[in-house]
């Protein structure tokens, strides 16, 4: 496990206060903070923004690999041991599309899970925590060096943080 970096942990009671703080933090250039919420919330989601997930590249590559593999498997086995079935050609594309399609889904799904696990482990961002974040409070943790802390503290307090504490 990575070590939790030092920074400021703010506890919010209200969604709009938290959303405003997030926007203000982004406004002055912080983007590596962590937000906790007990329930999914559109306002917070919007404030945090939607970074493009790197996992989708895994899905695409996995899917294309599966597509290729599906066609390769069916065509190769057909020509390797040629038997005429139902009067069709040896390598008949129409039914192989189904195999290729299903391999696309299978490989795409598996590589998505793999990508998810990979990025969850590699890109994890340890952050300070408070059990109230699973109950009825919203949390924002901003990792920052000692000299910037007063500034961050001011921003969070100004936008209505109920509690702000320093995490070493």
């Amino acid at each position, binding site marked *: 496990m990575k070590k939790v970096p030092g920074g400021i942990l703010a506890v919010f009671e209200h969604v709009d206060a938290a959303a405003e703080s997030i926007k203000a933090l982004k406004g002055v250039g912080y983007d590596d903070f962590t937000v906790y919420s007990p329930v999914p919330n*559109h*306002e917070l989601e919007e404030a945090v923004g939607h970074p493009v997930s790197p996992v989708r590249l895994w899905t695409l590559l996995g899917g294309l690999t599966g597509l290729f593999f599906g066609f390769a498997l069916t065509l190769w086995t057909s020509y390797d041991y040629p038997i005429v079935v*139902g*009067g069709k050609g040896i390598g008949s594309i*129409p*039914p192989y*599309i*189904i195999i290729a399609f299903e391999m696309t889904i299978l490989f795409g799904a598996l590589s998505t899970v793999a990508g998810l696990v990979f990025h969850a482990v590699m890109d994890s961002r340890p952050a300070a925590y408070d059990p109230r974040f699973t109950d009825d409070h919203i949390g924002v943790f901003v990792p920052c060096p000692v000299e910037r802390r007063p500034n961050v503290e001011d921003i969070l307090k100004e936008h209505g943080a109920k509690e702000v504490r320093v995490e070493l």
Partner: protein
Amino acid sequence: MTAATHEEIYKRGAAAPSGAMVGVGAVLAVLGMGLFAFLAGGDDPGRAWRIFHVDFVFFTGIAMGAVIFAAIQKVVRGKWAGPIIRLAEAAVAFLPVALVLFLLLFLGRDHLFPWIEHPTPVRGNWLTVTWVFWRDFLALLVLFSVAIAFVYHDLRPDVSKLRGEVNGWKLRLYEMVAGSYDDSEAHRELNDRRIYRLAPWLILLYAYLFSLIGFDLIMSLAPYWISNLFGAYYFMGSFLTGLTMLGLMTVYWRAKLQLHEIVGEKIFHDLGKLIFGFTMFWAYLVYSQFLVIWYGNLAEETSFLFYRLWGEWRPVGLLVGILVFLVPFCGLIWVKSKITPFTFTLFVTISLFGMWLERYLLVQPSLTEMGPAFGLVEFGVTAGFLGLFLLSYGLFARAFPMVSPRLSQKALHSIH
């Protein structure tokens, strides 16, 4: 994003500038239908009737598909489409016209239905003029009546609310539609209950009766070819055309009524996703039918595909696949292309044109030895139908509020 600007938008919605649409529609309708009347009395009435039939199934499908989109939103309690739902419901105005066009179709029956000249004893009495036309007429009548009742109930609260904004004939119309409705809690509940009861019935009737229409009016043109999937294929394709029409109308009215405040990127994104999804569904239906026919390799089944995918019709057959599936699939897969009005319009138009070509491909090869022909006859009559559609849609827009205050508000509340 203030409440005041929203009030402005609702007012504009009640006075939609429909002049251009009505004007263009009227001109196209008169020219196109005049041309059709001239051709139907000329040397080759068969060609005119065939394209009439293609356009009938195409445009009726659009109008019904769009209303079904509104009904589905009600059934699933969807709120996001609130600001644009009236743009789908407005297509209901074409339904009475469609019923008249169906009666007109009766006059051209000898040019269309091969089983009239060569009866098909294997089908028993299923394909006889009396039985086919009566059941289809009743099916359309019932379906259209339920659709109109559904839209009527969805209109009432809005018309009642906007009574203060209009005057003259429009006020009298609003009074008539609103009737005793007065926005009290009891009335609202009763009205909502009716909407939520009509919507699922409308969807079920659509699935059953449009299947029947598909079997009777398209599949019976090749009376010895049978596909159980065909009914579903026809009404799902119609639903796709309804969605694409709604997409185009959203782009048009958003600019015309300045709806940017309430019709944002999100609506285009969602509509784009739906169109993308049903594009795939269309391809899935085509492929699943193609595969079993290819595998079974029975002469009475393959003939239908041979006519359409080999020989003279091959280019049209391939073009349909490219325009309805390949281009919209590759085009609308990106978020950016869905939320940019230009690319959205482009791909949606391609899909809609592709679906028209698909209807053409379903009808024509069954009826004529002639290869694909696109001349004045085809474009003229199609323009006439387009004109009738725009005219009835435009008249609806002239008469009724095109933005629903209560549904838009619900949609905006659900975002926050």
